[in-house]
């Protein structure tokens, strides 16, 4: 145990470092910047948790009040018992992979005279806390706020503390066990980049699947015995998914019966389930972890040597523009942080949101919640040509939606910052600045165009719209999506972050990505306001309003494009390497 605590000292510091990086609070390298003091770091963390706590309390109070009105205040505890594992699933994978396998400190640990079990225990602790901190910080204040609003007994508040650990640790242990097997027995895991890429996609899909699973397990599908472990009739499930996660099931039971002996019984069972998970995890880790790490050091599969013919093919000449674009694509696709923050978000977000919207509409129609057939009505509205009389609405919605979705596509917003130290190549190569700038913009514009082509086609087919309807939606959406790309690119030209050390920084923590993410959210709102304003100015004239909204976006696009072209000539001289 003494060895464990000695080991945890440096690991704890490392843990804080990775936590700072994850939240974008890490110090940036630079000649003129002073290192951040300990007090400043504590204040920053404090502020972050205070903000999170504030949202959490609002969430807790709001949902509890709603559930009290609905007659099921206990549902909140179940929501937390299901929400926390969902988050730990997401953060657990993302945290455990680099901490357990990819950090360089691991090599230095293996040569120390420490028992393997101490290293394993230390590394698992190091992976668990940063993964659990966000779910706990988000749900714990909400739980306390819920207790106050719902008038829970004093024992509830005390038990809330072990509850948060019970509901987060077991799912984390399951995730790590899965990971141990993958890292030990699959070859693909040895390529750090490929593994991170696959797992990040898998995590997103898993989280989406898990939340769908929880939603589908509604109260109506109860079976005999589908009540909490306690006195009959005390509390029924909000979701039938709860018994599938024993730690959450008993944990929730512990809080729900906080005023009776069943609480202790549920608590003991939750503890036992967690201890069992920890035992299995440690047992398997003894066999799988260190061999898995050593397997990683052995490297990936050997690369084939180039034949003369392959070399001949691999060296086919291209124009400089194409060479830069293809290089950008390769780096975007091969760098996990770039891929997840740019391509994955850009493709998944609009697809998921529109998919969910269509599913919800279909479900509302089939469940009979609506007294009319909404989809049918929309299809008739399209087929009859009535949509032409609501042109302004179509242009406004397409503009706002495109701007909003394009804001999640950080390709252009990070195009210059992504170059990092290698920006010197751009200054060295004999390629005009405008060509390079256009090449950097190309991936963002290409994905934007493709996404809107597919989305427009999908919406038009689903709503049985005409070609003209589709064309108007596409042109309007593309213009606004392009607007976001060019404006955020322009911002990156002014405020590039080239001295990053962590690949997440240029795609997440720059002024341009903030403009892209937050600014375009505001722009999407503005375009709606502008739409109503023009409608008032033109006395409700449909075509003039639609044209005005379109021209409004077009003017911004032209201005931003001209500014980018003008700035591109001065870009290289403005940035010293």
């Amino acid at each position, binding site marked *: 145990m003494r060895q464990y605590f000695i080991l945890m000292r440096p690991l704890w510091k490392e843990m804080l470092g990775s936590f700072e990086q994850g939240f974008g609070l890490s110090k940036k390298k630079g000649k003129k910047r002073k290192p951040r003091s300990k007090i400043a770091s504590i204040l920053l963390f404090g502020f972050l948790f205070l903000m999170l706590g504030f949202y959490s309390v609002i969430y807790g109070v709001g949902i509890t009040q709603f559930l009290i009105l609905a007659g099921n205040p206990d549902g909140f505890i179940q929501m937390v018992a299901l929400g926390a594992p969902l988050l730990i699933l997401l953060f657990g994978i993302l945290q455990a992979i680099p901490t357990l396998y990819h950090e360089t400190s691991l090599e230095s640990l293996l040569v120390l005279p420490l028992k393997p079990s101490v290293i394993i225990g230390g590394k698992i602790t190091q992976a668990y806390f940063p993964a659990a901190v966000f779910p706990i910080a988000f749900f714990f204040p909400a739980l306390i706020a819920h207790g106050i609003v719902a008038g829970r007994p004093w024992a509830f508040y005390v038990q809330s503390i072990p509850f948060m650990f019970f509901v987060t640790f077991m799912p984390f242990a399951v995730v790590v066990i899965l990971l141990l097997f993958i890292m030990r027995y699959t070859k693909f895991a040895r390529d750090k980049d490929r593994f991170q890429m696959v797992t990040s996609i898998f995590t997103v899909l898993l989280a989406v699947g898990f939340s769908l699973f929880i939603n589908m397990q509604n109260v109506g599908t109860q079976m005999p015995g589908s009540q909490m472990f306690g006195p009959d009739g005390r509390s029924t499930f909000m979701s039938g998914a709860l018994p599938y996660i024993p730690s959450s099931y008993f944990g929730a039971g512990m809080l729900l019966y906080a005023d009776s002996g069943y609480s202790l019984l549920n608590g003991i069972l939750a503890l036992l389930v967690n201890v069992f998970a920890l035992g299995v995890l440690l047992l398997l880790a003894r066999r799988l972890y260190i061999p898995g790490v050593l397997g990683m050091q052995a490297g990936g599969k050997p*690369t084939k*040597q180039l034949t003369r013919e392959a*070399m001949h093919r691999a*060296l*086919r*000449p291209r*124009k400089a523009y194409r060479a830069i674009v293809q290089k950008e694509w*390769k780096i975007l696709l091969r760098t996990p942080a770039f891929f997840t923050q740019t391509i994955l978000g850009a493709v998944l977000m609009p697809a998921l949101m529109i998919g969910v919207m269509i599913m919800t509409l279909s479900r509302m129609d089939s469940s009979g919640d609506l007294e009319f057939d909404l989809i049918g009505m929309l299809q008739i509205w399209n087929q009859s040509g009535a949509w032409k009389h609501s042109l302004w609405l179509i242009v406004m919605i397409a503009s706002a939606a495109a701007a909003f979705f394009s804001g999640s596509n950080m390709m252009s917003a990070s195009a210059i910052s992504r170059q990092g130290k290698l920006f010197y190549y751009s200054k*060295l190569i004999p390629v005009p600045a405008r060509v390079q700038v256009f090449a950097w913009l190309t991936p963002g514009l290409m994905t934007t165009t493709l996404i809107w082509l597919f989305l427009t086609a999908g919406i038009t087919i689903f709503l049985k719209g005409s070609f003209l309807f589709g064309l108007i939606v596409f042109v309007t959406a593309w213009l606004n999506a392009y607007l976001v790309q060019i404006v955020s690119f322009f911002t990156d030209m002014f405020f590039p972050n080239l001295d990053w050390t962590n690949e997440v920084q240029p795609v997440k923590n720059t002024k341009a990505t903030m403009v892209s993410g937050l600014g375009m959210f505001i722009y999407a709102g503005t375009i709606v306001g502008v739409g109503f304003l023009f409608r008032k100015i033109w006395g409700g004239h449909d075509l003039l309003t639609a044209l005005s909204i379109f021209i409004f976006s077009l003017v911004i696009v032209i201005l931003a494009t001209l500014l980018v072209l003008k700035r591109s000539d001065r870009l290289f001289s403005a940035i010293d*390497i």
Partner: protein
Amino acid sequence: MIDIRNLSKSYDGVKNAVDDLSLEIRDGEIFGFLGPNGAGKTTTLKLITGLLSPDSGSINVNGYDIEQEALEAKKHFAFVPDNPDTFTRLKAIEYLRFIADVYGVGKEEREARIEDLTHRFGIFDVLNQMVKTYSHGMKQKLILVGALLHDPDTWILDEPMTGLDPASSFQLKQLMREHADQGKTVLFSTHVLEVAEKVCDRLSIIDNGKLLFVGTIEELKARYAKDDSLESLFLKLVAQEEEAAPYVPDDMMESLL
């Protein structure tokens, strides 16, 4: 040929990293650029290659002003930085193709030169591997191959021997000699005085951004101490930097004036 006149650069607006530097590097010579850490060598090389903009002064590379005719100038030189930072997520062959494309190297020429250079530096067999799997020395070799791919007239190399194994170091010195013998220019910075002594036709020593000496090793010895090694001459020069006036040979002074 590289012609530098009254070049100054300051990062903070107070102290000059390069201070009123004038220098001529002629065709057909290997020119060594020596100085202690922080002397201003890398800054000077970055100014010559256009990576940094000077506060004052002018730089001509093969007759092209690096500020006014940047694109033309860039076509005629190669630069190897002191740190082999490169696109680690490209395969080496992809990296070389990219470089060949942006410099407009023809199909046959690129294939022939890649084959020749990568064989010389011993990285032909690993061309299909990702650069991230390369060691420091291998990356350095790859960057060297990339830099020399378009057969530039002028080579500008910042600490090019760092990380190279003896065989590759020998190959590079050989290549530098061949290049200079063809009447072209090689400018390189180094800390290794033995290399400078053996390879350079002429050399310069700078410290605190100021030029302390320009000339051949013989001229350096003749001026300071005949029996001293280059190392002791270098140390003496740098120590006396505050008092010493820069030594510039007569013929160079004439051309500068």
